[in-house]
């Protein structure tokens, strides 16, 4: 429906962005610092958008997204480093195993009404971290050596696929079912929606892409350590979604970009980083309590702008 009209502009913009950046990188006009920041932004957008599906669309509160990131990171690293298999395969397997982990965590906790998922994901992320901490084959606390395989091309292709899948899911009867669960689970159930099924599916898709992000993440740093996947990492991802505005995909993208830039520039000053980060959050919460975008999407603003009168409603 609406999406078919936005699909080609999106693809054109995506291709343009990709080509421009790629040219800048290969001609050496963009140095390693900037290209790395762009890759980091892509990874963080994937994380933000995948969590947006779970929290913003389906209304299920998950606070352990870094656990799935860790699963994808370690599984993919094992595949490239221990099994010497190609990186593309490692990305897919990282995502699939993270999705399986999502099913294992999601099925028991999402059958129940209430915020059991929050507790379950929090516990899961901690358990995963401690498991990797205690497996010597993956380096324990010292970490695991990983080749630098993540390129701008890999990161960008994964990002585009993530956005297309999640947008297409959202703008379909399946996405509508997921949103109805968020809006009123009891009514959704009464309208014949299998609410548990949709909660689990959304959560598994979200976990899959967190795993994909994990594969990109681990092959971008030469080394991965369990300490990179602690609660603070989950919290960072959660902030992208909340700051952007619950239910707004463009909001999640926007805040992932903003916060990645802010924290990259402040990397050298960890204390200042926390202060500025907190200030940004406080200011946004004061002036835009529903997040940067509320529940609006970028495309809604275009519609508003084209039809100054009476175009006030938004699709989803």
């Amino acid at each position, binding site marked *: 429906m609406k999406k078919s009209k936005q*699909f080609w502009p999106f693809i054109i913009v995506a291709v343009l962005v990709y080509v421009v950046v790629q040219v800048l990188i290969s001609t050496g006009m963009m140095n390693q610092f900037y290209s790395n920041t762009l890759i980091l932004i892509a990874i963080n957008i994937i994380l933000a958008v995948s969590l947006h599906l779970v929290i913003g669309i389906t209304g299920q509160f998950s606070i352990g997204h870094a656990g799935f990131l860790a699963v994808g990171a370690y599984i993919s690293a094992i595949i490239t480093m221990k099994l010497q298999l190609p990186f593309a395969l490692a990305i897919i397997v990282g995502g699939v195993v993270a999705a399986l982990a999502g099913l294992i965590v999601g099925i028991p906790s999402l059958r129940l009404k209430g915020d059991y998922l929050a507790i379950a994901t929090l516990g899961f992320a901690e358990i995963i971290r401690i498991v990797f901490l205690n497996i010597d084959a993956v380096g324990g606390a010292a970490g695991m050596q990983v080749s630098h395989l993540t390129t701008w091309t890999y990161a960008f292709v994964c990002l585009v696929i993530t956005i297309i899948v999640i947008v297409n899911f959202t703008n379909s009867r399946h996405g509508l079912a997921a949103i109805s669960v968020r809006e009123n689970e009891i009514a959704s159930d009464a309208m014949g929606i299998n609410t548990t099924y949709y909660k689990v599916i959304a959560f598994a898709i979200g976990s899959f892409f967190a795993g994909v992000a994990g594969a990109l993440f681990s092959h971008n740093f030469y080394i991965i350590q369990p300490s990179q996947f602690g609660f603070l990492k989950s919290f960072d991802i959660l902030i992208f979604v909340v700051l952007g505005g619950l239910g707004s995909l463009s909001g999640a993208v926007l805040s992932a970009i903003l916060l990645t830039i802010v924290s990259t520039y402040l990397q050298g000053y960890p204390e200042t980083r926390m202060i500025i980060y907190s200030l940004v959050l406080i200011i946004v919460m004061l002036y835009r309590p529903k997040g940067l975008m509320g529940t609006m999407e970028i495309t809604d603003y275009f519609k508003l702008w084209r039809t100054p009168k009476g175009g006030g409603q938004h*699709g989803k």
Partner: protein
Amino acid sequence: MGNKPLLEVKNTGIQFGGLKAVQNLNMVLNQGELVGLIGPNGAGKTTSFNLLTGVYVPTEGDILLNGERINGLPPFKVTRKGVSRTFQNIRLFNELSVLDNVKVAYHSIAKHSIISSILRLPSHFAGEKEMEEKSIEFLKIFSLDKYKDELAKNLPYGQQRRLEIARALAANPKLLLLDEPAAGMNPQETKDLMDLIAFIRDKFDLTILLIEHDMNLVMGVCERIYVLDHGQLLAEGSPEEIRNHPKVIEAYLGEEVHDVNA
């Protein structure tokens, strides 16, 4: 049609801790009937609906729809078997448009898979188009089509109640359960609602069970009435019989019945 009743409730009940919210409930609804369920506050009317729709699993008895047991099924399966409902305190999907509220009810008739939607296969477009067209057609019947892009939460109260009924009907039920649909409505809205209920029953060949506090409404439209009190059936009969039933007068109606008679 058949002589088998549409709904049979056999000695059903539920207990919350020590409280028997509903006990020994027996009811029979025949195809096409419009039946009232009345009783004072806390009598167990909403709880009975929750038993019929699978929200609560009865601790005793059985519930049969077309002779098939439905107690123990989760609510979404009960809905798919043909029982749908509205809620005493409106439960719309507030942040969704009026159109999307109805579309949710059509969810189960479209069959395209998640994969087809993600890959935007032809079956996705066909399925979505069918849902959209059916929903718009449906809104027209309820004269809600002019609000189709409005968010549900922005509708006036009376229209919200109407939308909730429309949404319940879009799920294509054989049995429709309405929990105090006239609550909070003014007399004009209540009258429109009565007309609407009579209209949908004929148009959709429905069986309706109606909880209502407004005696005029109940006595006016229902052919048969069940009276609940303290979780138990007190009486059953035509409006005339209920009006003159000594137990009912004594237990609860009293004043109001005189009003109706007057």
